[in-house]
């Protein structure tokens, strides 16, 4: 039986601000297998982004465990988590977040600067990533010289250039027009089906979610397929958290 690449085990998250406690996630269980393409949907405030942040090691759960490729990330220090993300996670953001002073090539190269690579190796990797997203002819362009769709494609190249185990997309089509959205979603499919990349993507857009192999719905901090657990375990969770 195939082992999940990503295992989310009983993850709960509560934000505390002084006396006020705001539970955001309740006992989330989720398995993502190698080669999966998961769309995480839900209304605003449902906890999608929080779950994504926890899965990608940007945030830590109040309870539960996150295991990627057999390695638990709960309990790692901030530096260890940074190194873990460097090796295992590729991020695609809604607002692209490219460095305006760097060319497309240099933006894609940025995560590689942290790895032990020669300049030539970096150049080959960057060129390959830009070729995947179809921007080899724009590698010397600065972000301001590129359209929104092209900037997002640079963002995708930057996410895949380190060959990460998991690609995380936070509303990757949220800022794009219909045509660019189509281009980006096609790219995601290529990454998933042709290159075997595992993708977890948060989206509000049902059309975008349809491209995924699996759609998970979050509402008020619980995964809908786990909804029946909510009432059963609520008391137990609260006792554990508070």
């Amino acid at each position, binding site marked *: 039986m195939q082992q999940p690449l990503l295992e989310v085990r009983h993850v709960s998250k509560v934000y505390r601000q002084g006396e006020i406690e705001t539970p955001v996630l309740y006992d989330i269980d989720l398995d993502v297998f190698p080669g999966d393409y998961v769309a995480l949907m839900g209304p605003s405030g449902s906890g999608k982004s929080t779950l994504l*942040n926890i899965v*990608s090691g*940007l*945030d830590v759960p109040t309870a539960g465990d996150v295991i990627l490729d057999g390695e638990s990330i709960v309990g790692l220090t*901030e*530096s260890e988590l*940074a*190194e*873990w*993300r*460097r*090796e295992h*996670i590729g*991020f695609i*953001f809604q607002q692209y*977040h490219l*460095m*305006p*002073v*760097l060319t497309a090539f*240099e933006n894609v190269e*940025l*995560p590689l*600067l*942290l790895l032990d690579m020669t*300049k030539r190796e970096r150049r080959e990797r960057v060129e390959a990533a830009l070729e995947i997203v179809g921007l080899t002819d724009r590698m010397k362009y600065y972000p301001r010289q590129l359209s929104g769709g092209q900037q997002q494609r640079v963002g995708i190249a*930057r996410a895949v250039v380190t060959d990460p185990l998991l690609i995380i997309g936070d509303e990757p089509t949220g800022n794009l027009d219909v045509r660019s959205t189509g281009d980006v979603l096609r790219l995601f499919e290529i990454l998933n089906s042709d290159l075997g990349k595992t993708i977890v993507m948060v989206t509000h857009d049902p059309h975008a979610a349809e491209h995924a192999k699996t759609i998970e719905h979050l509402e008020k901090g619980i995964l809908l397929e786990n909804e029946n657990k909510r009432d059963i375990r609520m008391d137990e969770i609260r006792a554990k958290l508070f």
Partner: protein
Amino acid sequence: MKWIALALKNLLRNPRRTLLTMGAVTLALFIFTTLQTVLSAIQMQQGGGMGEVRLAVIEKYGGPRTELPVSYGARLGRFEHVIGVTPLNFTIVTAGGTSGPFYITFAVDPEGYRDCFTSITSQIPPSDYAQFIKLRNGALIGADIMRQYGWQVGDHIKLNSLLNRITLDLVITGVLQDETGANQQVSTQVVVNEAYYDAVRDKGGKVNLFWLRIDDARNILPVVKQVTDYYANGPMEVAVQTEGSMIARFGQFTASIQLVIKIISIAVLFTVLIVTANTIALSMRERRKEIAVMKAMGYTREGVLGLVILEAVMTSLLAGMAGTALAWGLFQMKGLMLSFGVAFNFVVTPQVMAAGLAISVGLGVVSGLVPAYRTARVNVIRALRSI
């Protein structure tokens, strides 16, 4: 190299701001280097000649400005424990015109000078020094001056004495240089024969002071007593000072100047430190999201800290190099003089340049530290969420 390239790209993000910051640092380091050069010239003037026990005999009430009869020299040489005596007049000379560079010049008795300043004269070949004794218009020229004008021993030169507007026709008989490090100032000085100098200026055998060399430091007090007692109630009473007190006397004169120089240097550097830190902090606030993205990609706190400090150091170091080079250029273009009865030859020494560059690096590190620390602690989620 890859990090330097990245830092350079970030510095060019807002060229005007970077240039203005660099301009402030350049100006600060220019002022610092200039002031330190002045300070170093003053301090160098006070140093040197140590290791030999010498006493200065000056007019009791007016000091070196009130001249003593040169004839006192013969009597001074006969006091017990005195093993050398030379009269000394000082002036300031230039090698052409009156616009400098300016060189301190001492007119001395060649044989007495050899006896009193053995640590200097022993570095001159005996045959050259013999020529200096022999030739009435012979001159010992500092090695730096020789280099500057391409002069050779044996050359005939003319030096203009600024204090009494006379021209000295001299033959170079030796080179003053310091290989021991104890008399660094001699390489920018000139020593001429007092007999010749006195004849040219026609003042009838007057000197600023006499140097006496004593056989042993333990005999200073007896010699001071003998000399002062001998000339007490005479036409010109004398005061006898140790070399240390002569230096201290000059030191007191320049101490306030040195203090002002130090205060100005510190104030300028502190001001520019605040300006630079504020500029870097402003730049970092604008880049919070970019830093958050870098941290999401796997850049650690330490990595971000290092990058920000590297940017700050590059800014201040480049600017510091420019400021130091400007100061160096200033002193290269024209010799400068501060006249307190003694002239200073200003040279931006390697030590001052190194201090300027070290301060530039320190300025970068210190000014970048707080913004870098705050930037490195950026919360990725919050920074990416903010509009």
